[in-house]
């Protein structure tokens, strides 16, 4: 283990997190990723509301939807629920 890791005496009991999970990239092991067809998308925001990870964000000032692939796990709920079928799940490629 790296020397930056704390000893058992230095950490809080009960495994209470001393860091925010924002710094823990949970989206790096997905197999599928959502790809949006901008022609079909009506920005109805269904995907924004239904993403269980909060990884799809709505920026009202730009009228823009943004996918955050650092946290998207590729579950496909957005593609399944999209009323205009604007989202397709594709195998993630580097």
């Amino acid at each position, binding site marked *: *283990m790296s020397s930056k*890791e*704390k*000893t*058992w005496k230095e*950490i*809080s*009991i*009960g*495994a*209470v*997190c*001393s*860091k*925010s*999970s924002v710094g823990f990239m949970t989206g790096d092991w997905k197999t599928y990723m959502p790809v949006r067809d901008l022609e079909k998308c009506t920005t109805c925001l269904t995907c924004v509301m239904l993403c269980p990870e909060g990884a799809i964000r709505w920026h009202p000032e730009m009228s823009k939807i943004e996918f955050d692939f650092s946290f998207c796990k590729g579950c496909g709920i957005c593609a399944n629920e999209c009323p205009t079928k604007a989202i397709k799940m594709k195998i993630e490629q580097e």
Partner: protein
Amino acid sequence: MAKPVKQDTMALNGDEAVAYAAKQCEVDVVAAYPITPQTIIVEKFSEYVANGEVHTEFICTESEHSAITACLAASVTGARTFTASASAGLALMHEMLFVTSGSRAPVVMAVANRALSSPLNIHGDQSDSMAERDSGWIHIYVENAQEAYDAIIQAFKIAEDVGVSLPIMVGLDGFTLSHSLENVDVLPEDIVKQFVGERQLPMVLTHEGKTMPFKLDPENPMTMGPIAFQNYYFEFKRQQEEGMSNALKLIPEVNSSYAKVSGRSYGNGLIDAYKLDDAEIAVVCVGSTSGTLKVIIDELRQEGVKAGLLRLRTFRPLPVEELRNALKNAKAIAVMDKSMSFGGFGGAVFHEVRHSLYDLQTHPPIVNYIYGLGGRDSSPRELRKVFEELTNIAKTGHVESPVHYLGLRE
């Protein structure tokens, strides 16, 4: 020493004594599911709730797995939490027992010890809690209904100590203690309240960099029960071991502070020795059979046999030093096990005691008796055989067979 407070004597069985103690400790949440021979505990407690005698949130869950999970969740909000179970119920809790201790939730649970299936058996033995030896819970076993009452009050004080912060199970032998009526001296409510005190919370560092009391609270959010992989899991387990070490120091302190209030103490809280100082033959026992053994020891002493008893009261944390010191002068030792460790060369208590004595310069011969499984009665006549064999071993130094079955049809 201050005089103990005046106490009322009540006729209570072991289960009722446990429920009465939990009531006096002003428990905030009880989540439980009934199972014989523990049922009377939650039944009695639900009566206190229905009569408005307590302000406890009483949760009737659909299973023991849910009961202990609800207790865990309540406990991490800072609530004083209690439950009770036995046998299959405790086995169903198995997964969550580890989560409770790992989450450092000081839940107190009474276990009315009962055999595990199969074949189905509702009677008393210690198979259920012995199978949870490594679940990270503190294990205390009592000898009678009076001690069941006292141990529950002490358990909150020990579990909720900031340095300990671990759950405790208090084992009372099913039926032998759970359903047997005894005279139990009970402390006045305000004295219990004062003794147990308000629950204190350890301080933790949150993700916002704040040092806060360890408490699930929307006003001060923190993440509990997260993932810890190869990088941190090991460190958290080591912390639990430290909680156990702290409990080993605290239990004798609580035992003596309780003695000042109540006039009752149980050895040093870890081990309870009976006529052991000059004993040549010693028996180690856990739970209610210790009472019968004391009667036999009194008889043997009158016959000139130097016999003694070590009742192992706290099984986890294991009081290794105390065991060593108390048993080092014995010429022969028998360890009683009311459960089996199949294929394991004797029962769990035998393993622990034998293991504790390994570092002594000279090892007294030590044998194991598996007894009382499925509630089989262990009569004084049967138990006397143990001392007879020990006398032979002490005389000859020869152990024919280390593991025996007492009261089994061979």
